[in-house]
């Protein structure tokens, strides 16, 4: 099995997921979980190779002439992500089967989720920049489907669209960034660009690359001020939030920055931009979590806090920061995945997830409570849990950040205090205290819904207790991959009594105090804080979206007047300007002087045409206008005949005939064409019409000034019979030599035909409905 197969497996199984879901009904979740579980086992088989310091790369050509390949690269970083994605994915599929049991659209959930998993694996494993971008966009696209799962709810649709627009806009910026990077470094493969890092950092494009790539990463990873889409995306079913909005998709931006750190990192720009955005996001969102009582919102903002921390660590760039980054990343994925699933179980069983309405659930939901608590303790950074080690390392990294250690350490402690309080909010409030009556009769969630929190929670404890299990196998290679140079370290539970430990104690005490004061805080400062940092950025999004819509509305009204006369005027007027200007400025006006070889019958035909045109223009009735135009059309056909082009002449005749039939059919139904009433309007129409005629005439005259190139004509004449076995050159050109043009033309004809057909039928349907009094 190759990595390509592993990445595409999710997509392939996704296609069959609806059938599997229908066939196996409630046990489909367990069955489909075999896919991510198998992928986890497959990726785990790379662990010994990666632990020994090697990497693995494979490449399959996709569009080789523009350097797009399915090239996949496995090193510590991509392996860590792949294991998180497939490992947590296993439990999410099982959990989803329980959470959405009996839902009529559950098949669609499996389909989108497996496709998402495939895309996410593609993002973290791709070595080719464009393949990476395609998978990146696929994650945005599939997450749109997943967030909007409850598509009958307006809030869901809004959240899905918001996430798509924010991450999609960022994705476009990132595309620009990676293309510039490929131009600057001369390769599409990340592994090759790493060797060109110095060239790229010195390149004139560097600042642009940096800003564009950061725009992609910051929007995807919900960095302030683009963070608002993530809490809004909590409208999604909880398994989706647990997967996309904690462990995977939102970490794609973090992955991207970590992956590009060896290429773009190490400059002052990188340092301040990435660390700055990360640190601000970390502090702002950690406290925003405290302004909500909805468990999922609290967890969502604490996720944004974690994303901020990770981005900040990547920006710092020194070895401690890299070490902290990978440990915090894994720690967060484990506890946050478990906590989201726990929140979903509470919501599912109790009918609400508002902590103010919940209480005393520990006795009725013992498993959910127990495993949720383990995860929450890890989030709070209590010793013996993986979260503790992660937090210690973050403090250590902050202390080692030489440009501004005090500023960063204060920010980190402040943020972690709020995180401890959040842990209390999601555990103590719903599970302790007196039992409160809830909208639904509460009982324990089914096994499918607590097995995930159980495994992830217990892993937080095991890795916290025995961190050396992680060090050599995955953490050292992962941190080395982010740093771009081999690092050496080992993880331990106990570092002795040092500054980070003292800070941890401060954090814990501060967190307890904040938790105690939470009810007061919510009543006093939190509303204002929330307005400033959560409502305002989202209002800015709404404002820009609405402005765009108003401009679109305004210009649609301007151009789509619904009056055929104005459409024709616009089209003809613009054509005259667009053709006329270059004609006059580039080619010049040319009027032939020699009129001697024009025969009298040609003059006669020209006179006939002019008479026809004048008659059409002044006609009082539509029928006369049509017939007059017919005179012009048939005269043109005669001219074709005179210049020996029988094919054209026949076509022109037939088209004229059918046009008369068509127009006659329309005219019978029409109330009659009203004349332009005002003299000004008539003058304007005359100007437009005459200039259009003039433009065509002058263009034809100008064509005479260019000497006729007989190459194509000669080629067609010589080869029409030899190659294409036909003597009628015109037809051979149409169906053979230039068949692609014809294919384009008949496609336009087909689209126009279906369009006209639909318009007429729709008109009929509306009329009928009106007659029946339905509308």
């Amino acid at each position, binding site marked *: 099995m190759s990595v390509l197969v592993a990445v595409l497996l999710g997509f392939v199984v996704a296609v069959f997921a609806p059938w599997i879901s229908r066939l196996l009904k409630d046990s489909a979740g367990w069955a489909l979980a075999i896919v991510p579980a198998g992928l986890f086992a497959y990726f785990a088989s790379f662990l010994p190779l990666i632990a020994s310091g090697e990497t693995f790369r494979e490449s399959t050509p996709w569009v080789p002439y523009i350097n797009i390949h399915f090239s996949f690269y496995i090193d510590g970083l991509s392996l860590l992500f792949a294991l998180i994605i497939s490992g947590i994915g296993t439990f999410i599929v099982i959990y989803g089967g329980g959470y959405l049991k009996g839902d009529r659209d559950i098949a669609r959930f499996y389909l989108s989720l497996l496709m998402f998993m495939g895309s996410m694996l593609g993002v973290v494993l791709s070595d080719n920049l464009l393949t990476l971008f395609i998978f990146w966009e696929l994650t945005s696209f599939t997450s749109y489907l997943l967030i909007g799962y409850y598509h009958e709810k307006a809030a869901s649709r809004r959240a899905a669209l918001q996430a798509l627009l924010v991450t999609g806009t960022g994705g476009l910026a990132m595309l620009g960034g990676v293309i510039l990077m490929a131009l600057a470094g001369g390769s599409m493969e990340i592994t090759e660009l790493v060797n060109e890092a110095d060239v790229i950092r010195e390149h004139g494009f560097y600042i642009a690359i940096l800003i564009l790539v950061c725009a992609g990463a910051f929007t995807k990873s919900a960095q302030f001020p683009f963070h608002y889409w993530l809490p809004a995306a909590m409208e999604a079913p909880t398994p989706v939030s647990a997967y996309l909005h904690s462990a995977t998709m939102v970490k794609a931006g973090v992955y991207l920055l970590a992956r590009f750190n060896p290429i773009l990192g190490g400059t002052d720009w990188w340092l301040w931009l990435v660390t700055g955005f990360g640190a601000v996001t970390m502090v702002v969102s950690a406290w925003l979590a405290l302004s909500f009582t909805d468990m999922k919102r609290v967890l969502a903002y604490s996720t944004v806090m974690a994303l901020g921390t990770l981005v900040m660590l990547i920006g710092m760039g020194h070895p401690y920061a890299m070490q902290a980054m990978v440990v915090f990343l894994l720690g967060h994925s484990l506890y946050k995945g478990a906590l989201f699933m726990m929140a979903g179980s509470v919501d599912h069983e109790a009918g609400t997830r508002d902590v103010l309405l919940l209480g005393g659930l520990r006795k009725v939901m013992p498993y959910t409570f127990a495993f949720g608590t383990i995860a929450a303790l890890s989030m709070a950074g209590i010793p013996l849990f993986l979260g503790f080690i992660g937090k210690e390392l973050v403090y250590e990294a902050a202390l080692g950040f030489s440009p501004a250690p005090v500023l960063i350490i204060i920010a980190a402690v402040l943020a972690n205090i709020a995180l401890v309080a959040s842990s209390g909010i999601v555990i103590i409030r719903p599970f302790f205290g007196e039992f409160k009556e809830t909208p639904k009769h509460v009982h324990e969630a089914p096994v499918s819904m607590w097995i995930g929190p159980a495994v992830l929670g217990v892993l937080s404890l095991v890795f916290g207790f025995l961190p050396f299990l992680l060090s050599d196998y995955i953490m050292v290679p992962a941190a080395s991959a982010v740093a771009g140079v081999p690092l050496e370290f080992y993880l331990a539970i106990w570092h002795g009594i040092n500054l980070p430990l003292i800070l941890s104690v401060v954090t814990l005490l501060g967190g307890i105090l904040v938790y105690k004061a939470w009810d007061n805080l919510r009543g006093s400062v939190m509303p204002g804080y929330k307005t400033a940092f959560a409502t305002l950025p989202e209002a800015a999004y709404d404002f820009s979206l609405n402005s765009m819509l108003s401009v679109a509305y305004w210009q649609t009204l301007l151009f789509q007047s619904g009056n055929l006369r104005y459409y024709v005027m616009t089209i003809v007027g613009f054509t005259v300007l667009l053709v006329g200007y270059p004609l006059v400025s580039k080619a010049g006006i040319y009027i032939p002087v020699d009129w001697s070889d024009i025969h009298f019958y040609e003059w006669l035909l020209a006179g006939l045409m002019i008479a026809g045109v004048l008659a059409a223009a002044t006609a009082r009735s539509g029928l006369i206008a049509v017939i007059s135009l017919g005179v012009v059309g048939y005269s043109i056909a005669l001219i074709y005949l005179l210049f020996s082009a029988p094919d054209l002449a026949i076509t022109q005749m037939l088209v004229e005939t059918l046009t008369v039939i068509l127009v006659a059919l329309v005219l019978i139904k029409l109330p009659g064409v009203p004349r332009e009433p005002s003299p000004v309007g008539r003058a304007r129409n005359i100007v437009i019409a005459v200039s259009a005629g003039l433009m065509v005439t002058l263009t034809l005259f100008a064509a005479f000034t260019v000497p006729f190139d007989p190459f194509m004509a000669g080629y067609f004449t010589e080869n029409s019979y030899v190659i294409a076995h036909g003597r009628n050159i015109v037809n051979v050109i149409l169906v*053979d030599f230039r068949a692609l043009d014809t*294919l384009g033309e008949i496609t336009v004809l087909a689209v126009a035909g279906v369009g006209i057909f639909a318009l007429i039928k729709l008109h009929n349907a509306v009329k009928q409905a009106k007659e029946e009094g339905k509308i």
Partner: protein
Amino acid sequence: MMKSLILETATKLLFPLLLMFSIFLFLRGHNDPGGGFIGGLVGAAAFALFAISSGTDKARKLLRINPTFMIGLGLFFAILSGVISVMAGTPFLTGQWAFPVVFGADLSLGSPILFDIGVYLVVVGFTLAVIFSLEEEG
């Protein structure tokens, strides 16, 4: 629809003639003036005449195929002729030829005829889709 005995009687004679002429134009297109587009227009004119004299219901019944379906079918044939070229390992829409001898006559059969059938069908389908629905427009 126009109720006219003269038109109806004339159509009975003209309709088969026009259809045969349409096929004739289509087939001779390769060596003489004609081809899918022109043939299609004449074919469409035949059915349009029939629709005007006897009504679209009868015309649709006579045509058997829905005009919009004909449009799709036409595009299908045109693209198919291109796909054949790709299957033969040549660029899209390169003519592929075979020269079988049928009853002693040398024939040159090529994929462009398939393409031209496609053009013919799209033209007939388009024209009739528009004319029929305009006629039926109450």
